[in-house]
């Protein structure tokens, strides 16, 4: 079966400094795949390269069998590849409803169709603060809103950059439930994480990155058994 998203031979630079060295990865339809690694190893850079946010990158990036390497970020989003940035990037002047409105796109075939009401079912907290401005929300609420906003575009695949970062344990638990529900809806997800127990709760497969290179690829169960890899690349 053709993968939903495939990245091959991806190199990326910040200015003169190369930070990614030949990254290869694939995500099949309906899968939840996690990119694991410590701070600064290139997880965020990998996701940013996929949606063409980096000034300098080379390699092949295909979404649904089609090269998206030279498309503008907005065109990539319109193909159904959503992106939730690490720093959430909520429009703080806009209300919750307005933030969702900015993300709204027409429904597309074969992907779950999200409405504001369905999203409020998924994120009950947000339903209670429809008219609150984005600047007056907690970090967890902003994270929920950021995901909900991207879902308003009815994507088939979502890139999630460290969704559990900086969240209280109880909110992380909610996030796990949300991701499970998204999987049930048939969404494909590629997320980056440092939190192994969070990844364990939801992911099918994992890639471990270290210094801009993939050091492990395989099922999550395999990774959990592989003490050596975990100690080398994940333990703090």
């Amino acid at each position, binding site marked *: 079966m053709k993968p939903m998203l495939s990245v091959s031979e991806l190199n990326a630079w910040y200015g003169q400094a190369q930070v990614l060295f030949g990254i290869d990865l694939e995500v099949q339809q309906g899968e939840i795949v996690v990119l694991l690694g410590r701070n600064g190893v290139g997880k965020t850079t990998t996701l940013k390269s996929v*949606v063409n*946010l980096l000034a300098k990158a080379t390699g092949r990036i295909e979404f649904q069998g089609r090269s998206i390497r030279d498309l*503008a*970020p*907005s065109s990539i*989003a*319109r193909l159904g590849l959503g*992106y939730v*940035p690490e720093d959430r*990037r909520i*429009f*703080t*002047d*806009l209300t919750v409803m*307005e*933030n969702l*409105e*900015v*993300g*709204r*796109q027409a429904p597309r075939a074969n992907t779950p169709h999200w409405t504001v009401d369905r999203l409020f079912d998924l994120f009950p907290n947000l339903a209670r603060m429809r008219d609150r401005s984005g600047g007056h929300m907690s970090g967890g609420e902003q994270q929920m809103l950021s995901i909900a*906003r*991207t879902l*308003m*575009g009815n994507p088939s695949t979502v890139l999630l950059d460290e969704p559990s970062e900086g969240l209280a344990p109880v909110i992380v638990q909610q996030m796990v439930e949300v991701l499970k529900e998204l999987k049930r809806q048939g969404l494909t997800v590629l997320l980056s994480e440092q939190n192994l127990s969070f990844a364990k709760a939801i992911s099918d497969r994992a890639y471990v990155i270290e210094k801009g290179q993939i050091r492990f690829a395989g099922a999550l169960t395999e990774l959990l058994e592989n003490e050596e890899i975990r100690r080398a690349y994940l333990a703090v």
Partner: protein
Amino acid sequence: MWEITTQVLTGLASASNLFLVACGLTLIFGVTRVVNFAHGSIYMLGAYAMVTFVSPMREYLGPTLGFWAAVAASVIFAAVVAALIEVVLLRRLYRSNHLFQLLATFGVVLIVQDLVILVWGADDILGPRAPGLTGFVSLGEHRFPAYSIFMIAVGPVVFLALWLILHRTRWGTLIRAASQDKEMVGLLGARDKLLMTSVLALGGALAGLAGALQIPMQPANAFMDVSIITEAFVITVIGGMGSMTGAFLAAILVGLIQALGIQLFPKSTLVLVFLVMAIVLVIRPWGLLGRPEVEAGGAMGEPPERILSPNTTRFALAALAIFLLLAPQFMSEYHVGLLIEVLLMSLFAFSLNFILGNGGLVSFGHAAYFGLGAYGAALAVYHWRWPMEAALVLGPLVAAAGALVFGWFVLRLAGVYAAMLTLAIAQILWSLAFQWNEFSGGDNGVNGIWPSAWAQSRVVFYYVVLLLSVAAIGALWRATKAPLGYTLRAGRDSPRRCEAIGINLLTHRWAGFVLAGAAAGLSGALFAFSKGTVDTHVLSVHMTVDSLVMVLIGGVNAITGPLMGGTIYPLLKAYIMPLTDAWRMFLGAVILLTVLLFPQGLAGFLSKFSRRFNSSTEPTSVSLRVASERGQ
């Protein structure tokens, strides 16, 4: 009592018009982060479109319907032109430095000015009065034009309409989101390019509306663009760049100050407006309702590599020195005059780049210091019969004093606000010189500013200029290699780190600013004696643009860049200007081409060129040497 009421109403009427222009400007800035000089040109085109459309439309549709149809047509015309400018030009500038953006959009201003004169001629064109609004309203014994009452209503109506668009439509929500994070809006799949174009069209439509509605009160003329854009800049800065409500409040404030201030300072209401702006910025550096700028402009780019080896450089300098010393022996008087101009412009450009390329301080009003030097020297001769020698000392001192005072305000601001304030300062001085007839000679300027008897001959005066300008350039050059220069560059590259290691950046920048001001003042003072006359041109925005163009042509990041630009530009002007009626259009095209194709100027171009040819030599040793020189 009625007197005051009439003044207030007049102020509110002009506030409406100012708001229409300023709100478009602030909207465009909010979304694109470009300070759009060409917005004034769109306003002017709206006015010219109105006088063009209104006659045929009145013929076909009758006086009333025809008038309003012509307004609508002008609005559409202005929107289309603004959208075209976005697609062709602005789109390519979003990642550039503010200064490049300002300069490029000023290039559009120059091109449009010549186009307007080509199409409509240089004379003012009167339009018809608005049907049904030609009468007067009685206020006590005063009569107030009914059209002005209509204008007073236009501002709030447009404000309300814009508010509804921004808060009640998807388009408006996207605009507000993009003002905060343009990239994120694109990442969510909204058509961001189209959004930018549509915002330019909206802003253009508002400017066009302002221009068209101005026609029943004032004729269309080819100078209305720069005067309105300066006022609109002042309003957006007072209100806070990107804030619609701020622009509305500031427009009312400025309109009222102008209307009421005319009784206090009949000569220059702009001075009063400036004072208010300065006070607002001291209290709130981001304007009444603005927010601090997060990003610090775009990059100016890497400095070009050194092209010539130290020996070759020494040889070239010696050859240049011999040429400059012997030039009058084999050159005609005309060419010696040209060489004087080259020296003065090189000094002027060099002084600008001392704070711009070296210090990273955005200045869009360097003419202020050139003009202060020129007027300082000229007025001393004209009013007090000072000799040239004394006047040449006074000129730079006046300019330095100006830089000392204005620097205090400017250096507390950053980025676009600083650029706007420098522009405003130069415009204020210009308007002072223009309006203060008794002292400055107004539009005619002051004449009879000739060198002392011993320096009357062109050749002797040439040597005076050579000595002083080379000494001043040498002093500034030396300063870039002194701790002051290092500190300025450090502040340019990382202001925060500078503050962290205990450098008082403000003081150093202030010193650099004053030094550059004095050097520009010297060049202005010498300029006055070389021409024998000084007029308002030396303080005008065109003079500022000349200085920036010279730096830009030469290359912002190279120390010799401004000298190259200061040489090429006066020669271009001397040889090409007489050949064409469309000099401004030519200059505008040069600016656009340079900004778009050679943003690193001639120095950057030559360095790239030589690198390509010398790839066989050892590039590492060259770059290492450059690196060590830069970092020592």
